[in-house]
């Protein structure tokens, strides 16, 4: 059976699993940050930035960024192959989908690099 070259893992099972795993990681990450915000009464820039500079938080943050990129890509890919097709969007559906996917891929990459720069740039 032909799979699609633009799907994330080229296997529906891999995509599905990745989508679930990344969702759990993101949930845990935001709960963690939320918990920190709630339990820290005097939040200053120093407290906030030293919190992100611990090794555990660095690893966790990187994991979360990778997860969000993968999660976004699989989601975008799924939605675009549902609605941006020749069946749903007319004769130019395939071109539209290609442009949309390319634009999203670039955008996700830009955000990815940008986030790393914000967290660890000088």
């Amino acid at each position, binding site marked *: 059976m*032909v799979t*699609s070259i633009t*799907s994330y893992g080229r*296997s529906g099972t891999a995509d599905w699993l990745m989508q679930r795993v990344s969702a759990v990681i993101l949930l845990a990450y935001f709960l963690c940050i939320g918990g920190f915000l709630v339990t820290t009464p005097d939040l200053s820039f120093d407290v906030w930035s030293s919190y992100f500079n611990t090794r555990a938080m660095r690893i966790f943050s990187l994991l979360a960024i990778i997860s969000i990129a993968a999660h976004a890509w699989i989601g975008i890919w799924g939605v675009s192959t*549902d609605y941006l097709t020749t069946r*749903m969007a007319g004769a130019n559906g395939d071109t539209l989908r290609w442009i949309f996917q390319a634009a999203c891929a670039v955008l996700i990459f830009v955000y990815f690099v940008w986030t790393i720069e914000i967290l660890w740039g000088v």
Partner: protein
Amino acid sequence: MLNVSIYRYNPATDKAPYMQDIQVDTGGRDMMVLDLLEMVKTNDTTMSYRRSCREGVCGSDGVNMNGKNGLACITPLSEVVKNNKLVLRPLPGLPVIRDLVVDMGQFYKQYEKVKPFLLNDTPAPAIERLQSPEDRAKLDGLYECILCACCSTACPSFWWNPDRFIGPSGLLQAYRFLADSRDEATEQRLADLDDPFSVFRCHGIQNCVSVCPKGLNPTKAIGHIRNMLLGRAT
């Protein structure tokens, strides 16, 4: 008098489909939607629909009644009529051949893809391939499907990708053979389903479950297939 609105389209004479409003005298009796269709057809022989067994066995009279798919022959008016009105349309998502008759080609193509027959290369024993009662019980809730297409044509994922998503009906049958102790092609069957469309376009909306006239649960079967795929991948 019951207000009935029927989707009409004869490609030979009509430029576009239209809804025909008619009043039908049911004499206040409850009856099956199919009986109503027969009454309409007696007065207007150009109106077309499919039917055969008239008892929910053949699966030919799947139609959309007041927005919900079902078999006309086993759906009483009392179950679907709202405010004395009944809107009848062909099953959604498939090309219309005429009036309530749809082209089931795409649906059957997906059914074919799952190889709905036993694959077993072991030489057949003298009498028959035996199956324990426990193994046979695993096929309950799967083998009863009559391929009426009510489920697949109620599924948004099938509307969007009818050529790539197998759809609830085909997947129920895929699992029927994955679950059969006499079938030897489990690995090949799973490999054929592993792409991002065949199984994984199911988003668990369960429209299929709510319309199946046989009370079957395609979503559950799809869940079993997904677990088998995950077991194989990890």
